[in-house]
């Protein structure tokens, strides 16, 4: 069996300004994961290490570089799964965690559950001794710029509806995860 690893850094209209950083980032991450495999490590260790590398890279919108929600806060989701016994762990809407994939790994390894969300996920992180990091350390200038542009767009849409006396829900999100 030939050890193999494959990574992605997201599928969307990656701008030219992020193109080189995105390519270099996935190349670095795949090498990190491959080192684990060729040194006898498991597939699940390899994918965790590779995704941690991507989460640590501000070119990608996971971990450091995460986008901001409408409250200008970071909420992150992550999952990990192994194919032998189909064990899996996941977290959603978790905050102040540098590497959500490793918290998902703890859900898989240390609980009987598959998915923990929000406050419960953060309480579990505390219970497991996972350090809490200030939200500001996860936010990049690019994420703030995108948020400001999106909120301005939403405000424009809201004004259009108001001027037409139409009481309709405002689209608060567009684009891709």
């Amino acid at each position, binding site marked *: 069996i*030939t050890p193999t690893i494959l*990574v*992605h850094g997201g599928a969307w209209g990656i701008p030219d300004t992020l193109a080189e950083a*995105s390519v270099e980032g996935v190349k670095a991450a795949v090498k990190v994961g491959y080192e684990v495999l060729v040194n006898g490590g498991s597939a699940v260790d390899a994918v965790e290490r590779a995704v941690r590398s991507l989460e640590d890279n501000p070119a990608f919108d996971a971990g450091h570089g995460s986008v901001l929600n409408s409250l200008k806060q970071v909420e992150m989701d992550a999952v990990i799964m192994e194919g032998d016994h189909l064990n899996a762990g996941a977290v959603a809407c978790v905050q102040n965690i540098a590497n959500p994939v490793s918290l998902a790994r703890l859900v898989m390894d240390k609980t009987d559950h598959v998915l923990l969300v929000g406050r419960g996920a953060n309480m579990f992180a505390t219970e497991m001794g996972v350090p809490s990091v200030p939200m500001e350390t996860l936010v990049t200038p690019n994420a703030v710029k995108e948020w400001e542009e*999106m909120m301005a767009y939403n405000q424009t849409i809201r004004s259009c509806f108001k001027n037409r006396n139409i009481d309709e829900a405002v689209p608060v999100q567009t684009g*891709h995860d």
Partner: protein
Amino acid sequence: TVGAVALDSKGNVAFATSTGGITAKRPGRVGDSPLIGSGGYCDNRVGAVSTTGHGEAIIKVCLAKHIMQYMEQGYTAQEASDKAIQYMTDRVQSSGGVITLKNNGEIGLSFSTERMAWASLQSNTLNYGLNPDEKCSEKF
């Protein structure tokens, strides 16, 4: 969104996916990424998949499990990836991307977006790309 799939020397597969979501999303909104079968799936009997793209659409078509089922039917990793992405386009008119690894080491990747950053490493050969049909190679 970022993700990885891997096959180790013992024949075990795994996947992981992580995301910050969508800019200005509604607080509490969860996309496909942490949902088994949507944001990814793996089974030693078949292979492993990690997905990215429009979360709500990916959830509706259970994109990762969809690819697994195609591979169980005998399609290659690439065929399964292409068919599932096309299905999502046809059925819910949305776009995304996937990386797929069959349990025999066969690799597949597909995306209907403008770009997807990806890289693979197998037998000390590093392949990577960003644009459609782009594949660069170097020795590791």
